């Protein structure tokens, strides 16, 4: 195992099935290198969300091995998982904002869970909300926000703690093209600081906006990696698979 693999994420022949149904993911193998930018594409029902669930530790695979930041997370005791989850930022497809908390409190939530002092979180949370264009909506509850505004709060919550890996499920689905580009720039900024970014999308225009990105394509639960670039990536800074 290389040092990069040790700090990254490696899937080895991973399969996932829910109950007795057929596998929704089969023989998925890849390595996400630290500081790389990945797009995950595929048709609806291809298994993108299931793969992301494995990445943000909401699900254990039915078979195979997953190593994350140098640790086998499948055999990891349950009580050690929270410390791994705190190294991840997640943008859920359905946003999953806490309905009775304000936009400010939703964005502050990961910092509070991590034990950051109130005095230390006010400025970053305020700045982040201002930057995603919600400067006048700090106290607004999710129900009073539009879909696009909710999505921006969800993204602000995912990146506020500067995670080691950002997992985003259709993060630009509800925003206009201008905001989509701006959010993508936010992900790139995060990526330049060393965060591994993986964005699930079926927006082909988005893929072209990040030329340095690698593209993973899921087809009926199988990872389409014809060149082996995901499993054995070139030393260069990346390229389209």
């Amino acid at each position, binding site marked *: 195992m290389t040092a990069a693999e040790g700090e990254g994420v490696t899937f080895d022949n991973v399969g996932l099935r829910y109950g007795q149904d057929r596998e929704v993911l089969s023989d998925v193998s890849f390595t996400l290198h630290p500081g790389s930018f990945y797009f995950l594409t595929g048709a609806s029902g291809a298994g993108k969300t299931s793969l992301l669930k494995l990445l*943000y*530790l*909401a*699900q*254990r695979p039915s078979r195979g091995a997953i190593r994350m930041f140098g640790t086998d997370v499948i055999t990891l005791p*349950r*009580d050690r*998982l*929270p*410390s*791994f*989850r*705190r*190294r*991840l930022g*997640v943008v859920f497809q359905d946003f*999953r904002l*806490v*309905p*009775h*908390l304000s936009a400010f*409190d939703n964005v502050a*939530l*990961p*910092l*509070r*869970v*991590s*034990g*950051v002092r*109130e005095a*230390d*979180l006010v*400025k*970053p*949370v305020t*700045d*982040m909300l*201002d*930057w*995603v*264009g919600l*400067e006048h909506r700090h106290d607004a509850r999710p129900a009073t926000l539009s879909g696009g505004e909710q999505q921006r709060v969800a993204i602000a919550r995912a*990146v*506020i*703690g*500067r995670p080691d890996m950002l997992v985003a499920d259709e993060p630009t689905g509800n925003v206009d093209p*201008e*905001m989509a580009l*701006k959010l993508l*720039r*936010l992900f790139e*900024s*995060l990526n330049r*600081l060393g965060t591994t970014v993986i964005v699930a999308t079926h927006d082909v225009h988005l893929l072209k906006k990040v030329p340095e990105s690698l593209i993973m394509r899921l087809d009926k639960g199988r990872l389409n990696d014809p060149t082996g670039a995901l499993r054995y990536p070139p030393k260069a800074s990346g390229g389209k698979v």
Partner: protein
Amino acid sequence: MNNAASKPPALGRKTARGLKPFRGERAAQLVPHARLAGPMPWVIAIMVTLTVIAAAGGLALNNVASSARAELAGGATVQIVEASTEDRNRQAVAAEALLAEHPAVASTRRVPDEELDALLEPWLGVGTDNEAVPVPALIDVRLRQDATEETLGTLRGILEGAAPSARIDAQSSWLAPVFSTISSLQWLAGMLVIMLGLTSAAAVWLAARSALGTNQDTIEVVHLLGGTDTQIARIFERSIGFDATLGGAVGLALGLGAVLFLGQEFTALGSGMMSGGGLSALDWILIAFIPFVGVAIAMLTARITVVSVLRQML
């Protein structure tokens, strides 16, 4: 949108991460509170009220039994069962004199005939002819120690010659069925307190599960953001602790009101036995602790319930 700011903010340095506790008011906000509008405080208030009444009843019965036992333990009654009034009086005087000299006896009192007439009046009517219906002479004897069978046997031996018609019995033996009933009632009160405690725990369990179901999405989000089971359980523990405190205070007030009212009613009866059923300072302290125990049970139950449900998640 803030178009002037092109560089994303606050990403220049990592936030210190750890497993510090997420607690306090900020954590509590994650679970919306219904407080008095919800059923939980009222369920606990009713449980605490019933527990306070049951506990006060049990403690009062205990005091009645202790007081009666203490009063009767050293008491004995001598009956002179003799048809002839003259012989009855002669034997009574002789028996009283003999008993008064005995070292085991603290005091004696011949129950006056007027007092006996008054006792029998409800059954025999006024102006009973003692010749027609001979009533035994009674001597109330106070012993220096408990009226054991050995002491009573000694006294019987002394009286045998001078008062052959005398019968001596320990007073406590007459009230043995009453003591047995009081003991059963005490057990019943104890069982009631235990059952009410279990019912309260079950109610809290249901409430915690219901709150958990209502807030399932929030819990999942906090869980996926790295919240630990302990952090999430503490949020529910705190919420249910507040409800239980509120309910406990209301329940204690209602329970104490009921106990004081019942106390006044029993005092008004003027029964000698009931007068020994007052609650001591220690009893009141024990009763005041019931809401605290209720809160502790509620919080512990909430914690166990929430942690057991969370453990079903990854």
